């Protein structure tokens, strides 16, 4: 490349400043929330907490940790995520495999049935009536079943299956393996990368979801931790129902939101550095080949 012109050097400088600002604006809220979660209530109310905890204390963490409901809801989140992801993977893998068979009669119709739902949905009310009528309220199935296939994930998986060499499957067929056998013994072992990515996609989305539970769960002991957080933010509960006295609670009103945010986001933040690149490659696969 030729020597950069002076004006381009200026541009590079400005660009660096802009991107630094982007990084700061993105990260600062996290830093501030963590600082608040360890800070004293008085210092928070006075607006003193910015980058670093002021009046360091762990009282709020103790109160949240002593709240049985918090742990209960955390456990619910784990349970709902595992069950929902398992159901989703079963259905998505089966359908993606079927769709990847180019010779299959009626394949375009099968694809169309799935893709159409990306552009038109039944809407909130008919779904609500349906789930209520089926008696799925207050059960994990109200969360798992209605969201069992993400069409986007389906298309990513289909694209991956299509890219596998057909000769392998033909050879397995000649050796007498049935379609189920081919899928289980040949295709899936070759698809570990995409299966892992899809598990990740579903896990994160179920972990983060709150609305289905909010809509279909009537009892607080059935809520996932996202709804626990939502109730604290909305002021519906103050949290710490078990271990804390009212006097204690009035002392931690502002920091309890910060603590709950930190604890809810923690698992995602811990795995984020390791999983991020799978998401990026998954999105690109879906975009290029969908």
């Amino acid at each position, binding site marked *: 490349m030729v020597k950069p012109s002076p004006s381009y050097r200026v541009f*590079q400088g400005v660009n660096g400043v*802009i*991107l630094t600002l*982007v*990084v700061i604006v*993105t*990260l600062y809220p996290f830093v*501030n*929330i963590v600082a608040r979660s360890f800070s004293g209530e008085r210092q*928070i*109310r006075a*607006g003193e907490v*910015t980058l670093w905890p002021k009046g360091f204390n762990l009282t709020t963490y103790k109160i949240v940790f002593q709240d049985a409901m918090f742990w209960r809801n955390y456990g619910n989140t784990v349970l709902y995520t595992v069950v929902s992801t398992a159901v989703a993977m079963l*259905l998505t893998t*089966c359908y993606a*495999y*079927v769709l990847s068979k180019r010779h*299959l*009669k009626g394949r*375009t*119709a*099968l694809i*169309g049935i*799935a*893709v*159409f739902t990306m*552009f038109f*949905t*039944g*809407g*909130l*009310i*008919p*779904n609500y*009536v349906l789930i209520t009528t089926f008696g799925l309220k207050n059960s994990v199935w109200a969360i798992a*079943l209605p969201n069992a*296939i993400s069409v*986007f994930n389906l298309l990513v998986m289909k694209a991956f299956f299509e890219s596998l060499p057909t000769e392998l499957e033909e050879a397995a067929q000649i050796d007498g393996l*049935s*379609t189920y056998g081919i899928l289980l013994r040949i295709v899936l072992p070759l698809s570990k990368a995409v299966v892992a990515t899809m598990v990740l996609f579903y896990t*994160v989305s179920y972990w983060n979801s*709150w609305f289905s539970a909010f809509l279909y769960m009537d009892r607080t002991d059935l809520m996932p931790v*996202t709804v626990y*957080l939502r109730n604290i*933010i909305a002021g519906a509960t103050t949290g710490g129902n078990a271990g804390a006295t009212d006097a204690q609670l009035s002392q931690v009103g502002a920091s309890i*939101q*910060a603590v709950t*945010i930190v604890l809810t*986001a923690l698992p*995602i933040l811990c795995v*984020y*550095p390791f999983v991020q690149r799978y*998401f*990026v490659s998954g*999105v*690109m696969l879906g*975009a*290029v*080949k*969908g």
Partner: protein
Amino acid sequence: MSTTTKSASPPGLQKPPGADPPPPPTSRTGWRRALRRDWQLYSLAVLPLLFFLVFRYLPMIGNVIAFRRFEPGGSIFGEQWVGLRYVEMFLSDPTFWQVFRNTLWLGGLTLVFCFPIPIVLALLLNEVRRRSLKRFVQSVSYLPHFLSIVIVAGITMQMLATEGPVNLVLGWFGHDPIRFIQEPEWFRTIYVGSEIWQTAGWGTILYLAALTTIDEDLYEAARIDGANRWQQTWHVTLPGIRPTMITLLILNVGTFLAVGFEKVLLLYNPLTYQTSDVISTYVYRTGVESNSFSYAAAIGLFEAVIGLVLITSANTLSRRTVGTSLW
């Protein structure tokens, strides 16, 4: 998300099965042969099809309760025909028009800000020479996308609290603290701002991928023709990512009315309904909270139909004018 230029990628919208195979005289025996040969494959499709049927298409049909009187506990398709009564009801409902206006505002602002910002960010990132730096900025900017919307709403509220960082900065300029969350005139800014914070970085992925596919020779040729960097960006880079831009624009237009329902639900409160209440939150409140299922379904159906019309027309328009389309 694909552009139908290759015939290999399947077209998006199809008729339901049965209507599908091109009907040569042998089509029935063809089906019989296909079923005999591939019955195991078809059997794998049974559960997923059941899912689509029950949880996607049944609710679509369930929308008939918008034209029938529904009693909680009764048939999910309602009890008796009432014609367009519920449609007329919401069309003459002043609250509906307010939430309709709010929806247009929020959707429009989101489109205007959240569509171009990832493009600009991708172009800026593309100019970064140090790979490690580029990757660092990307990793950081993707982060908010991975968080639950509840966490994003919580963080937004903490940032905007009376003792929060935003008011702290305002204080430096001698401004009194603003109670952002309670002020209707701030809601749109808050909503769009948090939306940008959460989605801008993630939105760059596809553009950055598109940028790597642009042929280096084109830049070479442009330089020989005497184009400076701005001209190269304008005449080579932007046309290079145009298909991606249009695809995403169509998708954005299609989801125009379905503005972040969950986020609005988390961020709004009765004090800000005047600007924050959108069609979907109004549907939620009238339907689920007040049990007016048929009335709410009528509004929801209206929203979904407009969404479908929007995405279909955007798609057709873009296929006719620039030759890129989703299907």
